């Protein structure tokens, strides 16, 4: 059994691991600036989209605060964005809307060169900008979409209330090349519905430890969200799980996808207040959050990870039928995470062994950085007069005798 002090110390180390996984504030702000430039281009007066006031909003991990840096620092950051229109020309089909956004992007000399092959629902900009000593490398997925109605007002309301009831109304309509009506249906209320902001609402509801504060959601869905230095335990857990996935599946296309990990983790999370307890319980609980539902399409029970804001219709694990190896990958990964977390916890009683047990699952360099940051915190805590030593054991922590200031010296003099 872990003592509370041990759990807390583990959590402090994991917090540093999470912070080390965060993109820097500078990277974050450059990314926001870059996608806002895209937004301005789409909405500027000479754009055919201008009357519909397009807006670029972050969604996915950028909105959820669960973004992590790639394993290799030179790799692109993935940023999911919604390009949201407040209305459309009544004659436009899904295809028209998709192409209007694409054409406008292509009309910009720089973006034209960055645009990747057309996706099923998105346009992707392989964004590259080098200026001075900053290298910006993003994979910007831009999802053309249209709001049902009066979106802004609803957004404001939904994030100011504690109740969850308005979440339906946060839905947006998207284009999908595989949809039957892609080329002819002009009534957007028939288009595929997606609800990335409703999902965000749900996620922050699950993550929040203090509903009164309705943590940072409003900031998170703003066009220019603020960089968050402090994160909730669930956000840290998701970051840690995604890093473990990246290490285990580097480059493998069958790797478990982030939305499945994030959704199962958020469902399994029980508002644990320290990161270690949260991580252990989430890892233990994720498996049982996967449902079996009857599929008339496959005429059998299939694994189902429902979208919490589109429970009946959307299975985040729908690809597992077409690619059974993805289902295997997911369960292998979950087994591996559980084993690794248990191994790390079993090394209590020796910080060095704890550190070594974290190297394989998370990467040696990242772990050394995390332990360095932890060490720097300890020094700061003593300099600030916050470090104490418990009598009996001599254990440093928050109780006992205050450790006085001094300087370790290197030589007898």
């Amino acid at each position, binding site marked *: 059994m872990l*003592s509370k002090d041990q759990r807390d110390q*583990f959590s402090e180390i994991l917090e540093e691991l999470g912070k080390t996984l965060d993109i820097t504030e500078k990277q974050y702000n450059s990314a926001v600036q870059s996608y806002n430039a895209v937004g301005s281009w789409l909405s500027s007066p000479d754009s055919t989209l201008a009357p519909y006031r397009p807006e670029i909003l972050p969604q996915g991990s950028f909105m959820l605060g669960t973004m992590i840096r790639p394993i290799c620092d030179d790799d692109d950051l993935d940023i999911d964005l919604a390009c949201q229109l407040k209305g459309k020309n009544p004659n436009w089909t899904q295809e028209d809307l998709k192409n209007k956004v694409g054409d406008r992007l292509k009309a910009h000399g720089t973006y034209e060169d960055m645009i990747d092959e057309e996706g099923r629902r998105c346009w992707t900009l392989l964004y590259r900008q080098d200026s001075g000593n900053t290298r910006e490398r993003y994979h910007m997925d831009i999802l053309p979409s249209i709001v049902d109605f009066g979106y802004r007002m609803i957004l404001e309301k939904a994030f100011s209330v504690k109740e969850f009831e308005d979440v339906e109304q946060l839905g947006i309509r998207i284009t999908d090349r595989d949809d039957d009506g892609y080329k002819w249906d002009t009534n957007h209320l028939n288009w595929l519905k997606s609800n990335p902001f409703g999902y965000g609402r749900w996620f922050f509801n699950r993550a929040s430890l203090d509903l009164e504060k309705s943590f940072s959601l409003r900031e998170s869905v703003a066009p220019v969200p603020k960089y968050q230095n402090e994160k909730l335990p669930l956000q840290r857990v998701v970051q840690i799980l995604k890093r473990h996935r990246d290490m285990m599946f580097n480059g493998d296309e069958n790797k478990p996808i982030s939305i499945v990990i994030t959704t199962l983790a958020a469902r399994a999370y029980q508002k644990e207040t320290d990161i270690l307890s949260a991580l252990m319980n989430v890892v233990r609980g994720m498996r049982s959050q996967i449902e079996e539902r009857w599929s008339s399409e496959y005429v059998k029970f299939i694994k189902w990870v429902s979208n919490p804001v589109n429970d009946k219709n959307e299975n985040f694990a729908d690809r597992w039928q077409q690619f059974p190896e993805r289902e295997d990958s997911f369960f292998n990964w979950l087994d591996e995470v559980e084993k690794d977390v248990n191994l790390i916890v079993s090394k209590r009683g020796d910080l*060095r062994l704890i550190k070594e047990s974290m190297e394989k699952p998370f990467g040696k360099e990242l772990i*050394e950085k995390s332990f360095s940051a932890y060490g720097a915190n300890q020094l700061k805590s003593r300099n600030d007069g916050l470090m104490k030593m418990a009598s009996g054991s001599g*254990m*440093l922590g928050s109780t006992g005798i205050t450790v006085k200031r*001094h300087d*370790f010296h290197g030589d007898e003099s």
Partner: protein
Amino acid sequence: MGMKVKIHPLNMALQAQRLKALFPNSEINFNSQVLNWRCVITPSPLSREYQIKLVLGRGEQPNVYIESPLLELYPEKNSLPHVYSTKKQWLCLYYKKVKQWNSGMYLADTVVPWISEWLMHYELWLCTGIWHGGGIHDEKKVENLKEELIEGNKGRS
């Protein structure tokens, strides 16, 4: 150099009493000239245990040794950070020149917490190869500091 503060040295009995009060399971023996203290310390909740020996001679600075275990070194390093002797596992806990400890201070409230702190930072050093505990380790800097002090005094006289 600076003001002279009168120190009221604590006798060995008072030091021993305070050590025993905070560490009831520790071993202690002393006379008027010397105090020996042996104790097991766990510097942080996830740390291992260390057997410590502290020796204080009357009118002297305390000497602190890690008796066990044998401390390991970070790969490719050949000495421990902040020690007088790696072989003896003899710790440099504070800057003696500026009297960060004097005989008017209780060991249990000053030097002992510094031992815990040294041990925790030793463990983190073993994890990262970098000492994060701060302190004066650049001997050139110390030499410069010494010279500055001498120069400063010359100027004053």
